[in-house]
């Protein structure tokens, strides 16, 4: 009955109208009476001591309201920026997270480090005054690469972190992995670099804070993926205001990709300063500030060894990674290279022994934290490059070697040696479909044709797996998380039968206003235009954990289903009363409640009306139709699939053209295939960007960010990308009521390995990401 707007329908995105007609309300669109403008003075140095700070002249400049510093924050008892996930090192000690004041005190530790907030009546005045702030810096030695930072004799970044080592973590069975390697028929050994990237959401980060003296309440508008987490941390740890006196609103947010999960200095300072100055303060990052101070992604140096038997069966994997965490531990920085990385090194395969160790090192660079995929792209890159290279070294077809190692479809639940239990999957099916779609059999002929034109053709696989639906609270709690990772939903019927759903998830491009409405439309028979999805305002929505880790549908959507279950249960009682039947005899389908075996029925709208106008109503049922549910997932979900890329290289210039891309992804059940395809496209663009174009470069000599604008940092553009050929297979997830797995990160996770496997297949040689024209040219020319 609701097929056109129900589960499985490619409903057009309800939210797009306002975005397309320019009526989206992003942070900078919001203005408050009496608003001032904040501008941050930032460090021009990678590492320096602040010998003197003098704002006298700045304070005298026209239109200046205040110049605020780290010591001011400290004096007001505002706590430092925190890391919310504790990691324990091999030796049992907790990770080292040096104090991170929201504005620098005494030292600056990266270019772009926030030193002071200048508040002006206009932005221009704030900026003019910022130039008048005089800071006497004494430059100190710096280090930007993690390998260098962890080496003997490296410059010491924090007095209380010897050797710049935050933690030295391990997972798995070292002895078993080493034994597998020493007994193996063949061992593939590689050094792999997972290059550092800058997220570049289209809307830069921003904050607008406002204090109401009458109610003593602070309202903080900010570009957040998880406004309740912002409120919790700003209250409990930074002490900006008690939780009930702080309202955080994340309005329309123009992309996040992880970078807007974190609680940053800028919004913390604005939230505090608005009360201090009793003026609204707006800060909107310029693009160059975004480059400098958004949390960056990836940045691993890895050595891996994969052991095979003579048939190409994997016997063991040993991985040693140095992860660059930047100059401070950001909100989830410690979880990304550990529990979101090591736990996925099993891939789609039966791997009897796995061992991973990760050293996290501080450097004089921006903090590094979760970026689309967060840890899982790094894991997939290791596994999928290693198996591909192993296949090459052993002379086995890369598709074939994967098939020999896939976990069988009847082996679920499957427990890996790295603490994950996969609930479901069908890896060989995805592989077969991908090979068929790309016409794998015809590749050699296509390669020969390219060779005739002087071009090198290559094909590459990535059979990725990810852990999404983050995550069971007890599980993450036992691994060090400071929070639970459940989700909330409130389904509120209005008396006239329309519905408002309040969700703790936050949409910043994902299309929740459509997908979530489809669930309601499907299950309760409400026309989709009668369903409103409300999110992003802690003043409206029940406490929720937000959107990241492809969790919104699997966790937030499941919470909606749980709330719907309560609505149905209550509605059955009302229907039974009204229709004079027993509750057991009421059957429900898509919002129609009928008495079994009769033609007596009530619609959801009729029941909702009677719940608000309870003239004839069961005595033991509360009026109203408004149910809230909290859902804690039973397990992670495990989306997986096979991507195959085909490329052609011009050996004279080193240019890589992506000729074809096939993605076969198992996302479990799919609510809106069009949105899923869009998510895959976006993820692929970012994954391809990382492998081919994007690269964050800090100058070793000066510590300056060399790729601080689009003149030097290359974002993928439409003409860099091929026409993607995207399919899904649908093995339902067995651990959530919708059977869904999540699709937001798959493309970014799968793509880098597929593309690098294709490029190195064409070259017959291994190179690291990004495969820039010069790097490819050098490999092609044997230079």
């Amino acid at each position, binding site marked *: 009955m609701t097929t056109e707007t129900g589960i499985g329908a490619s409903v057009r995105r309800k939210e797009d109208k306002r975005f397309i007609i320019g009526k989206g309300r992003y942070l900078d669109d919001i203005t408050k009476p009496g608003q001032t403008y904040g501008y941050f003075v930032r460090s021009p140095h990678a590492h320096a001591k602040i010998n003197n700070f003098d704002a006298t002249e700045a304070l005298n400049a026209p239109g200046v309201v205040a110049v605020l510093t780290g010591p001011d924050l400290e004096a007001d008892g505002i706590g430092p920026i925190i890391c919310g996930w504790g990691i324990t090192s091999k030796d049992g000690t907790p990770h080292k997270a040096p104090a991170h004041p929201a504005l620098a005190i005494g030292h600056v530790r990266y270019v772009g480090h926030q030193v002071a907030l200048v508040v002006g009546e206009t932005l*221009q005045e704030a*900026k*003019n005054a910022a*130039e008048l702030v005089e800071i006497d810096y004494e430059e100190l030695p710096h280090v930007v690469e993690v390998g260098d930072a962890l080496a003997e004799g490296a410059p010491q970044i924090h007095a209380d972190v010897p050797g710049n080592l935050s933690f030295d973590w391990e997972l798995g069975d070292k002895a078993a992995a080493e034994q597998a390697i020493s007994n193996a028929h063949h061992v593939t050994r590689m050094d792999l670099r997972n290059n550092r990237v800058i997220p570049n959401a289209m809307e830069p980060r921003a904050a607008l804070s406002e204090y109401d003296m009458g109610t003593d309440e602070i309202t903080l508008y900010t570009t957040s993926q998880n406004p309740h987490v912002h409120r919790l941390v700003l209250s409990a740890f930074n002490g900006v205001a008690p939780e009930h006196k702080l309202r955080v609103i994340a309005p329309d947010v123009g992309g996040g990709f992880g970078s807007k999960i974190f609680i940053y200095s800028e919004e913390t300072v604005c939230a505090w300063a608005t009360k201090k100055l009793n003026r609204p303060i707006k800060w909107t990052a310029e693009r160059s500030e975004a480059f400098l101070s958004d949390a960056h992604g990836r940045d691993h140096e890895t050595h891996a060894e994969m052991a095979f038997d003579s048939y190409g069966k994997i016997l063991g994997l040993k991985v040693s990674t140095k992860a660059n965490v930047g100059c401070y531990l950001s909100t989830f920085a410690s979880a990304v290279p550990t529990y979101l990385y090591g736990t996925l090194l099993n891939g789609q395969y039966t791997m009897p022994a796995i061992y991973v160790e990760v050293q996290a090192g501080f450097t004089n660079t921006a903090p590094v934290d979760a970026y689309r995929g967060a840890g899982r792209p790094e894991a997939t890159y290791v596994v999928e490059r290693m198996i591909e290279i192993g296949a090459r070294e052993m002379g086995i077809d890369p598709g074939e070697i994967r098939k020999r190692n896939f976990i069988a479809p009847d082996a679920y639940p499957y427990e890996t040696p790295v603490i994950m239990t996969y609930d479901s999957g069908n890896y060989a099916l995805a592989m077969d479909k991908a090979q068929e779609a790309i016409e794998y059999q015809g590749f050699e002929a296509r390669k020969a044709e390219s060779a005739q034109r002087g071009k090198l053709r290559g094909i590459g696989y990535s059979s990725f797996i990810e852990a999404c639906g983050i995550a069971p609270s007890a599980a993450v709690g036992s691994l060090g998380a400071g929070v639970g990772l459940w989700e909330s939903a409130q389904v509120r019927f209005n008396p006239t039968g329309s519905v408002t759903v309040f969700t703790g998830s936050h949409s910043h491009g994902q299309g929740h206003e459509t997908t979530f409405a489809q669930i309601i439309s499907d299950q309760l028979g409400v026309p989709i235009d009668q369903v409103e999805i409300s999110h992003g305002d802690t003043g409206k929505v029940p406490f929720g954990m937000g959107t990241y880790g492809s969790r919104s549908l699997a966790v937030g959507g499941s919470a909606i289903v749980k709330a719907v279950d309560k609505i149905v249960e209550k509605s059955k009682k009302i229907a039974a009363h009204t229709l004079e039947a027993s509750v057991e005899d009421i059957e429900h389908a898509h919002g129609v409640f009928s008495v079994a075996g009769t033609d007596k029925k009530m619609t959801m709208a009729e029941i909702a009306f009677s719940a608000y106008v309870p003239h004839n109503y069961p005595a033991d049922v509360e009026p109203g139709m408004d149910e809230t549910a909290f859902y804690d997932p039973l397990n992670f979900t495990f989306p997986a699939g096979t991507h195959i890329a085909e490329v052609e290289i011009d050996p*004279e*210039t*080193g240019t890589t053209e992506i000729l074809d891309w096939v993605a076969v992804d198992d996302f479990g059940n799919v609510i809106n295939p069009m949105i899923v395809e869009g998510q895959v496209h976006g993820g692929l663009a970012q994954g391809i960007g990382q492998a081919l*174009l994007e690269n964050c*470069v800090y100058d070793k000599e000066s510590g300056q960010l*060399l*790729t601080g604008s*689009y*003149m*030097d*940092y*290359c*974002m993928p553009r439409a003409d*860099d990308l091929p026409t993607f050929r995207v399919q899904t297979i649908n093995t339902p997830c067995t651990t959530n009521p919708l059977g869904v797995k999540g699709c937001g990160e798959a493309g970014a996770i799968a793509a880098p390995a597929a593309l690098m496997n294709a490029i190195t297949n064409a070259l017959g040689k291994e190179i690291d990401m990004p495969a*820039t*024209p*010069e790097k490819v*040219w*050098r490999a092609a*020319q044997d*230079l």
Partner: protein
Amino acid sequence: MYDFDYKRPSTLDEAASLINEDSVLLAGGHTLLPTLKQRLAQPETLVDLSAIDSLRGVCPDGDKLAIGAMTTHAEVANKATIPALASLAGGIGDPQVRNRGTIGGSVANNDPAADYPAAVVGLNAVVNTNKRAISADDFFVDLFETALDEGEIITNVTFPTPDAAAYMKFDNPASRYAIVGVMVAKTSGGVRVAVTGAGPCVFRQSEMEAALSGDFSPRALENINVSADGLNSDIHASAEYRANLIKVLAKRAVAQING
């Protein structure tokens, strides 16, 4: 951006009278405005040339093509009767840039990675100003430096129609300026090969010009050893790689001309 005065004269003379050491000419603004926004320059006055009609247009003039300084890249791409020039202009930046940026602004700015310098030198054009005519070989002096005097205004650039020409560009993947761009032209004065992007300033590759004068074929360039000495090296491309691209692109330009 610091505060400044804004003037929009309607004649060239008026513009000339407004120019002094504290004022700057404004054309498309695609280089100047980012500089102002980053507070890297602090002019007192911007003298906008956009109301001076005589500075705009693509005008055939016998065997020459005169292009007004304020003509946008998009207009040149659509109207220039020299195909290599039209295609060069059509490959600058993106549609927004092509509809704002001007030939006068580009040539005056002399960005080492800009495309137009290769056309001006490769096609042996003349840069005309409100004071004089400057030949291409004399105009581009060094990195961001030209033969223009302080306050001198480019009025147009005249391109002699070549017998044949082709421009090959290898884009910087990020900015899409030229990592290397090579214009090869058969002109009445002989073969010209102009290279942009590779060095601090556009230059002629005389060895290639000589080789192509004898044998206008890609083969003639095969044995030329392009030296990396003095070429640019940055995070996008080393001097050695740029040297390779000069040769590859020159061969491709010749191949295109030969059909």
